[in-house]
């Protein structure tokens, strides 16, 4: 599974999943902390829809952590102040970068979590759609 998809699942899903996968790696491999979780900024670049040009809307606070496994560095980045999650994401990223065999077994739990996230979003959208309105113009 590619990084974009798995980080979407791990950040939007239950934090316990990232913890479980990271714990599995920590039990078997030496995970060296390259950089402890730290707070920093990500500047967000937006495409505006009037003239299709780019501009910076502002910054977002992120937590970043870096971990090395078998000399492969993994990076965990997440919006907010989330030290634990950033560390777990970094371990999982390093595990994929080092092509550890455990990652082959993660496909199923990740896909199951992705399905749960999708169902939750669909349900939330259904709630929001209760406010869908049909205005009628009045005869004058």
């Amino acid at each position: 599974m590619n990084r974009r998809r798995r980080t979407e699942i791990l950040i939007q899903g239950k934090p316990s999943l990232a913890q479980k996968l990271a714990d599995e790696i920590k039990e078997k491999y030496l995970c060296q902390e390259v950089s402890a979780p730290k707070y920093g900024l990500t500047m967000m670049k937006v495409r505006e829809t009037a003239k299709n040009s780019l501009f910076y809307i502002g910054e977002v606070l992120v937590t970043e952590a870096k971990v090395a496994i078998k000399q492969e560095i993994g990076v965990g980045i997440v919006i907010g102040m989330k030290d634990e999650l950033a560390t777990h994401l970094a371990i999982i990223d390093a595990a994929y970068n080092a092509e550890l065999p455990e990652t082959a077994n993660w496909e199923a739990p990740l896909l199951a979590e992705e399905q749960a996230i999708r169902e939750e979003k669909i349900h939330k959208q259904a709630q929001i759609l209760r406010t869908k309105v049909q205005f009628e113009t009045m005869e004058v």
Partner: protein
Amino acid sequence: MGYVAVKGGTNAIEASIQRLKYERLKGKEVIEVETILKTMRQLVDQVMSEASLYSPYLAALAIKQAEGSMEEAVFLLRAHRSTLPRLYYSQTVNTEAMFVERRISASFKDIPGGQILGATHDYTHRLLDFDLAAETKADIEKWTNQWMEEIKEIESHGELKHFPKVVDYLREEGLFPTYPLNNENPDDVTKKSLAFPASRSERLQILTRGQTGAVTSLGYASLRGYGQVHPNVGEVRVGDVPIYVASSNENTEAKDDEYYIGDVKLTEVESFVPVTTKNERNEMELNFEIGYGICYGQNETKAIAMSILDQCLENQDNPFSTHDEEFVLYHIDSVESTGFISHLKLPHYVTFQSKLDSVRNVKKGRAEDEKA
């Protein structure tokens, strides 16, 4: 004009800071940051937007520390921002990917996908609800449990719905001009001081971090005749937008390899502004241009006002101040305007004494002339 520093007052300043703390604590009530975060959603949004730092928790903390003063909270958050390293630049944020929670059009009653009111004060009675004065945690539990039971019954199936932009639909019909993707790197007003003429990216960055009241007032001035932009709101949308950063912080657009880092809530507006232009036959004809507004959180008034000012500043050959980019861009920043106004209360003894001496000399000279 030169400034002369003052010294002294250390003890009085320390006592003043203690007094300030006492004012915050004398009621002997604790307001948790979490409480502000959970109950003051739109205040938190406004502080983040004006501070240009998206962090609901830190915004709530700043509100607590500032005892609810907007200008102070924004100042605190801006100051904190300056202590943090900028680690990444995001990939281009595509607002079409927004998980829409609210979406309305004032121009068309039927828009593809429909109008969604979402959560809004627009249709509430503006009457004080005295029941809230006695609201208890038990009341909240009861209401939310009932709500959860109700929404459990809502049927949800199929796929997530995507809501196309109203403007895209009109562009397809040829009613609005289309522009090719412009990938020119934006300027950044936090890295380079503003110079005029400003680029479009600088204008939009300053407008989006502008003080809500200032942006709203100038947009309103344009509507009232101190400007020549009176738009129709084509679409207002509020929702969460996903943010991605490239791997290795290289500016690669390889989507599969990028990191998703979470969502930010935004309000985005496209306003339709009628303009008269010359066609290829040199005849005047009516066309539309788009004013663009966007800001952190849910702050629709600011985003609409920004869309008006965006369009004003796209048409600067106009005598009104709202079309003058120096006037607009130099006066809407919260920290700059409140900072400059409030510096007036700090010691200016030497400059004022000098003015006073000048007035005394003039009056003395006049009195001597009259005697002679």
